[in-house]
């Protein structure tokens, strides 16, 4: 019995990481209706840039975040204004195909630069540290990851609803043309949204790299996990995304408990069940 409780608890904590994969995806979709197929590869890019930073400067991965977050934000702003803004419009094909092309380019650039060998970020003693709670042994890193996910989501919620920047996000999301008439430069607002999303991606990439090994080919899988968390939680609801991540994580750890080969499959099945029963997700934001 305790083993199953343990599987559920570990799944909940894993869900924090998936919510971080999903947060950037959700933010970009919310502001500019763009689904970024390269999102997973950008997470892996962040992990590799984190690796280079820790190796070159000899710093802890968490310290590397101080450099990585602004760096990824910069990449995001340039990417959005230089490339992705040109794809936005009524037709869904250009953004989809351009980000798909970007995904292939990123994957192969990482392969060229870092080879296909699996890599891992070394976070020292914290990786193996654990706490005992009521017969369960909880890893400090998973707990920390979950805590960071809650903080990031609360932070995004705050930015969205309590700052001038968030007002800009909501304005362009509601009606781009009128927002433009009110003096907002939508190209800039989109750039800032992508910068913010990729800053979150930097956090996700570092936490992923500390948790497991990674190689250039796994970006697509991370995109899918993030996407499933978004759909399970309900489009447009950022706390729902956390819930979606948790459900996905629990489904995976329970699947793995039954048979190690079923871990990822069980997550996909949970997603399909939600899609069949509640196509708008479990906690959809009411839209008119």
């Amino acid at each position: 019995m305790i083993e199953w409780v343990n599987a559920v608890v570990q799944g909940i904590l894993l869900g924090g990481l998936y919510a971080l994969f999903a947060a950037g995806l959700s933010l970009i979709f919310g502001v500019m209706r763009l689904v970024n197929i390269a999102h997973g590869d950008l997470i892996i890019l962040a992990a590799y840039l984190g690796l280079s930073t820790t190796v070159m400067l000899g710093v802890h991965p968490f310290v590397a975040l101080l450099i990585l977050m602004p760096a990824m934000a910069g990449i995001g702003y340039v990417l959005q204004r230089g490339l992705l803004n040109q794809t936005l419009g009524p037709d869904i094909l250009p953004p989809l195909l351009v980000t798909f092309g970007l995904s292939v380019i990123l994957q192969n650039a990482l392969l060229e630069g870092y080879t296909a060998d699996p890599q891992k970020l070394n976070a020292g003693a914290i990786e193996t540290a654990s706490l005992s709670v009521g017969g369960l042994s909880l890893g400090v890193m998973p707990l920390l990851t979950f805590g960071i996910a809650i903080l990031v989501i609360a932070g995004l919620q705050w930015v969205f609803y309590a700052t001038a920047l968030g007002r800009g996000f909501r304005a362009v999301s509601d009606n781009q043309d009128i927002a433009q008439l009110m003096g907002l430069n939508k190209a800039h607002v989109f750039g800032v949204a992508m910068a913010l999303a990729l800053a979150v991606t930097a956090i996700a990439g570092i936490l992923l790299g500390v948790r497991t090994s990674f190689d250039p080919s796994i970006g697509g899988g991370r995109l899918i996990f993030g996407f499933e968390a978004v759909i399970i939680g309900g489009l447009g609801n950022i706390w729902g995304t956390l819930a979606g991540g948790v459900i996905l994580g629990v489904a995976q750890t329970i699947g793995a408990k039954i048979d190690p080969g079923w871990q990822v499959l069980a997550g996909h099945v949970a997603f399909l069940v939600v899609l069949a029963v509640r196509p708008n997700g479990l906690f959809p934001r009411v839209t008119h």
Partner: protein
Amino acid sequence: MSAPVVTRATRASRVAMIIAALALIVLALAPWWAGRADLRLMGEIFLYLSLACLWNLMAGYAGLVSVGQQAFVGFGGYMLFALTIFGGLHPIVAIVLAGVLAAALSVPVAALIFRLKGAYFAIGTWVMAEVFRLTFAQISSLGGGSGTSLPVGIVKSLASSRSGREALSYWLALGAAVVVITCVYLFLRSRRGLALTAIRDSEVAASGLGIDIWRTKLEVYVVTSAFTAIIGGLLFLQKLRISPDAAFSVNDWTAFVIFIVVIGGIGTLEGPIIGTLIFFLLRETLADFGTIYLMVLGVVAIVVMLKAPKGVWGLVRDRYDLELFPLSYRVRTDTKGS
């Protein structure tokens, strides 16, 4: 002055049909004039051409942008292996049956993923492909995660000599490409094809004219899935070996196909043909560069999408008003007549 005539065919399209018929005869004779390696390459080209035409029908006409067609390529491949090894069927029968099974399977799949719109539909198809991959990786009698080879006896049942098998495999690929292009062409010329073209141009207007959008899209999805599975069976009949990672590879069966269609010209019948030729030209010249080649391909696709969204064929058509497959109607006043 004579009354204006509405036609579909043009002189260019008639000439193109004659050239295509001649080319087809030459290609059908390839086992007698081409070397072994060339024959294999041409077989692969025809199968990619078929995949590109099918993806183009879905994405370019029905607005179903899928990045998960590898689900049906892999399914077809695995069905070839399962039905021949366990069912004792002849490989060609198994491949046709794989198409039927894929059509049946695609209906419940569509019922689920059609709930997702636009770009989310795209990722939903990818999830489905992953479900297929992980499921087949669990089947230990088909080799599990490491895959399996087609037994020698089954391979020999195709033709006793090696050159005979290679020629048969080539003809099957050529035949598949001809059947796919002809079917897509006839479909687009039919009443349903007109409905599909209307949906492509404006969903709202098409629905206002009484077209059942969901149903039309479902039909396209089911037919495309069936053909894609058949092509998958043929691809793995060439390879003679299957594994989940090869069968459900997003790069091999979807990324390349998307690049072919985008570069050639999405939403046209000529586009996939031009795109396949460009793709294989690039591949044969740049393949030694490995990852660089894929990056170049990605950059070319992005530039085409941004600068010439109708692809190479779109540029040609706008410049010369050319249409090799007569799909659109033209009004012509015959000024030379009485």
